[in-house]
């Protein structure tokens, strides 16, 4: 029953979010602010995490593929496909749910408990649309770029770590990166990142928008939002993989 209540209220909020804006210019201004605030500020963490994960995967695959029957370039191939198919889309979305999602819930939740949302409503502004729509568009817009950045720096991480640790030579790694490349993997993951971007912005926004009480409840709502967003990301990952990859 509780799930149905939240699902119903979520979709009713989404309907309000996509209502006609009062003044387009104000929304565009807010959109650019959100792209900077939520998107551009996330590039650093994406780069850091991807470099380390690329390096770690290179070392781990080299141990897993230690059998002399396996050609060494398979390490590069495995790193590339893992990044392309799962890590840079799904895992990065899970990390971003923590960073961007908690930010969105606490920002909107604080506005709710300090009556700033009521203030917008009394002015005659659709608060759900004004506060949430620019965030959704900004995150959906920036997620494919974060995906591409993550794949690039993940491969770079492996490229640096492999030769340094002596697990694979540079030419072997590069050969693995080029071998059996399926461009559809990237298309598939970009589709996934668009869906994940929508979830990462809209689900935490929902929990923030309907928070009740004080600062403590805003903190609780942030945690609930991140947990629920993560579950939904994995659920939609399963659905999309089944639909688009098999």
């Amino acid at each position, binding site marked *: 029953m509780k799930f149905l209540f939240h699902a119903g209220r979520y979709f009713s909020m989404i309907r309000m979010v996509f209502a006609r804006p009062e003044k387009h210019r104000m929304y565009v201004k807010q959109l650019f602010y959100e792209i900077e605030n939520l998107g551009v500020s996330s590039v650093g963490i994406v780069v850091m995490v991807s470099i380390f994960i690329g390096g770690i995967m290179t070392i781990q695959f080299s141990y897993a593929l230690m059998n002399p029957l396996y050609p060494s370039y398979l390490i590069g191939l495995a790193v590339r496909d893992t990044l392309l198919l799962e890590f840079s889309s799904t895992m990065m979305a899970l990390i971003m749910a923590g960073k961007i999602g908690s930010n969105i819930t606490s920002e909107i939740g604080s506005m709710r408990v300090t009556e700033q949302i*009521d*203030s917008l409503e*009394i002015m005659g502004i659709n608060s759900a649309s004004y506060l949430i729509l620019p965030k959704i568009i900004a995150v959906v817009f920036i997620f494919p770029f974060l995906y591409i950045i993550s794949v690039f720096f993940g491969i770079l991480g492996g490229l640096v770590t492999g030769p340094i640790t002596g697990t694979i030579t540079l030419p072997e790694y590069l050969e693995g990166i080029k071998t059996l490349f399926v461009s559809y993997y990237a298309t598939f993951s970009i589709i996934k990142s668009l869906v994940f971007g929508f979830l990462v912005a809209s689900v935490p926004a929902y929990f923030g928008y309907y928070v009740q009480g004080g600062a403590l409840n805003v903190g609780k709502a942030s945690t609930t939002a991140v947990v629920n967003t993560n579950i939904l990301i994995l659920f939609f990952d399963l659905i999309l993989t089944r639909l688009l990859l098999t």
Partner: protein
Amino acid sequence: MIEIKNLVKSFDGNEVLNNISIIFERGKTNLIIGRSGSGKTVLLKCVLGLIDVDKGEIWYNDRNFTLTGEKQRKKMRQEIGMVFQGGALFDSITVEENVRFPLDMFTAMSPREKQLRVAFCLDHVNIETRAYKLSPSEISGGMKKRVAIARAIALNPRYLFCDEPNSGLDPETSKVIDRLLLDLTKEFEMTTIINTHDMNSVIEIGESILFISQGKKEWVGTNKEILNSHNKKLNDFIFANKLYAQLRKDVEEG
């Protein structure tokens, strides 16, 4: 003018407002007073349309607010200014931008016109130019309330609502806010409704006072009449403060 007719509101079968009828007049400071939990905030939210009423009507001049659709309500809300208890200023923007926000959203004014209007409103509430670029977190509680009043009057509203405008303020600053609300009401001929339990405000600016007790209209009068009232519930509320009990004694003794 705002007229409330037979307003009823319940939450989970618990009647919070019971058959309230009152007229809030234009150009006057209309105060709603009562103990905590008496229903005054619910009444204010009903009048603002933030809570739907169960029964009764709310009229803004000749427009029945309870029957208007969401689109029409949105339009009507542009005639309403609201000062929240905590100010409800937007944290992410400066004092100046807070006051300009409704102008950006609803007017086709040029940047210069907006700048002049913002300066006019902030000047009316005695905010100095050097505070324009500060963020709400950098100003005092009294200043926040004054900026909130400036934002509320930016669109030249016909109706001004204030929810506990003096809460958390020292008596001197409270007096400044009270005078400001009274002066603005007179200057702009607004229908001002103030929700308060600050007795100083009641005596200072209560041109029309509605006393609510347990969701019912208990007493209506002015600040001149309130100290001589014979309503027991009202007297218990006012004279819980010994200062006012003494004041009444002094009045009675001439």
